């Protein structure tokens, strides 16, 4: 068995761009994400982090290279299979209608239902549990349009949890969260990892990355990304080069911290 077949998610020499005439956004990306690990995708704005999530989801199709889920090309999964394997937590979502939170989260059950069926009482319980896990259970009857940015982000996480995926894709999951909720998210991610869920997250906050990630993928515009275990990749030299400014990795009270000026 090759490394990419053993991995849950594998990118093999993947290149992708939105416009054929311009240079690709993603350049020869190769990495293996093994089951039960958390991979942090780090890089400056516009480096193609969200694009990478779109590719992993099968929403975008690469120019060249292979993306496999447990050895199968991701684009060959059936629709409901895809929904049961993968869940996406977008950074934000346009919400034009005032669905109640629990109804919104219930939509995550769709890939588990027979075609055209509506969710049952059991699905409803799963949705409520997901809301409880993200700390929004008291908001179950609240219209989503009246929620704050942070609450919405947790709501989207709850919907993804309702999908009970094997691979969770998180796009800047802490972007709108306060300190308390950030800690909650880190705890949820650790719980999920203990349950065997694999996670791929883009993140701008080195502290969050250091707190949860096992592996890191550093994305630099116009170069193949750098992949490896967190300790090997998330170094002063690599981060300084990535952001074009001096970055220090120090240890405070036994935990690694990233400092910048």
């Amino acid at each position: 068995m090759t490394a990419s077949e053993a991995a849950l998610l594998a990118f093999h020499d993947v290149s992708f761009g939105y416009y054929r005439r311009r240079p690709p956004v993603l350049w020869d990306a190769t990495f293996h994400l093994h089951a039960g690990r958390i991979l942090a995708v780090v890089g400056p704005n516009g480096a193609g982090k969200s694009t990478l999530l779109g590719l992993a989801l099968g929403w975008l199709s690469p120019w060249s290279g292979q993306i496999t889920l447990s050895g199968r090309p991701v684009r060959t999964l059936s629709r409901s299979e895809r929904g049961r394997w993968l869940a996406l937590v977008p950074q934000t979502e346009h919400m034009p209608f005032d669905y109640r939170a629990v109804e919104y989260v219930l939509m995550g059950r769709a890939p588990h239902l027979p075609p055209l069926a509506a969710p049952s009482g059991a699905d409803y319980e799963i949705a409520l549990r997901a809301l409880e896990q993200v700390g929004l259970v008291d908001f179950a009857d609240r219209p989503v349009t009246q929620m704050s940015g942070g609450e919405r982000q947790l709501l989207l996480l709850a919907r993804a949890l309702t999908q009970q995926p094997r691979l969770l894709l998180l796009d800047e999951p802490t972007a709108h969260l306060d300190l308390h909720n950030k800690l909650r998210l880190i705890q949820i991610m650790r719980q999920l990892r203990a349950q065997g869920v694999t996670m791929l997250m883009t993140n701008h906050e080195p502290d969050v990355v250091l707190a949860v990630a096992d592996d890191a993928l550093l994305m630099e515009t116009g170069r193949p990304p750098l992949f490896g275990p967190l300790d090997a990749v998330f170094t002063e030299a690599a981060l300084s080069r990535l952001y074009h400014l001096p970055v220090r990795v120090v240890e405070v009270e036994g935990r690694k911290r990233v400092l910048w000026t």
Partner: protein
Amino acid sequence: MDIHHARCARWLLILSAALVVAFSVSLLLGRYPAPGLIAPQLLAQDDLAFRLAFNLRLPRMMAAVLLGVTLGAAGAVFQVLFGNPLVEPGFLGVSQGAAFGAAFAIVFLGATAVVTQASAVLFALAGLTLSYGTARLLRYGGWTLRLVLAGIAVSALFSAGVGLLKYIADPLTQLPEITFWLLGGLAAVTWNKLLSVAPTALLGLGVLTLFRWRLNLLSLGEQTAFSLGAAPGRERLALIVAAVLPTAVMISISGMVSWVGLIVPHLARRLFQTDTRYSLPGAMLLGGLFTLLCDNAARSLLAGEIPLGILTALIGAAAFLGLMIWPQTRLNFKP
């Protein structure tokens, strides 16, 4: 499940019962032998009254209910699909296409009922196809915005065409007929007409009913819907066709009946909240009830017929204003 579901189920039951009662009473309502309700015994004894009720009133009432159900459902589906509470079933070039088709038939094809009806359906579907095709050619904006823009442009083209046809139409014979069609009404409905459109309408409505929960997914962004295992492009097209076909065939026998498809989904969402599992059937029942009552008024309020489209526009627009101004309805939940 929770209280909300029980409440919605109860409201659906109440509305169904109201529709059955309204339908039964409407059969007795009219201007023969005197304005008002006719006694059921008289209906059995008086041969003319019996034939009046079963050959004129009954198909007309059924057409009114079917029209209302169709417009309510199509409006609800469109508003969710386009994430826009201001769209109505005909906006993708369908209403204006049908109007153009009818006017074209009246001016050039001799205006027999069958030809007018067929031409209206044909041009309504042409309107949809044109809008959809144009949207695919547009090279900017999201899918929804492109369709809305294309719909507006195609509608404007057809409405210019209607203007032109009105201008060249014979002012004594053809123009009044076009005008009457544009105002909308069910006075000319017969069993034959009703039966010629009912299967298509019921088929489309059946598909929409089956999709009533899944429709929720399509209110989300494309990528999100995809991540939930939907095929947003294909499923949206299927739902648009399933909503437009019934609308086109019903408009072909009723003419332009405006505002039902806009106001009814709003009322339904007030009553049932957003989840389309309940708000879609709710919009169907409310639409049927609303159109039936409006048509009752259209045929029995005055000795002459009042065009149905005028009544629905009047009541619909007034209700819309009321919905927006009434402070209590702004909040959709109780803290």
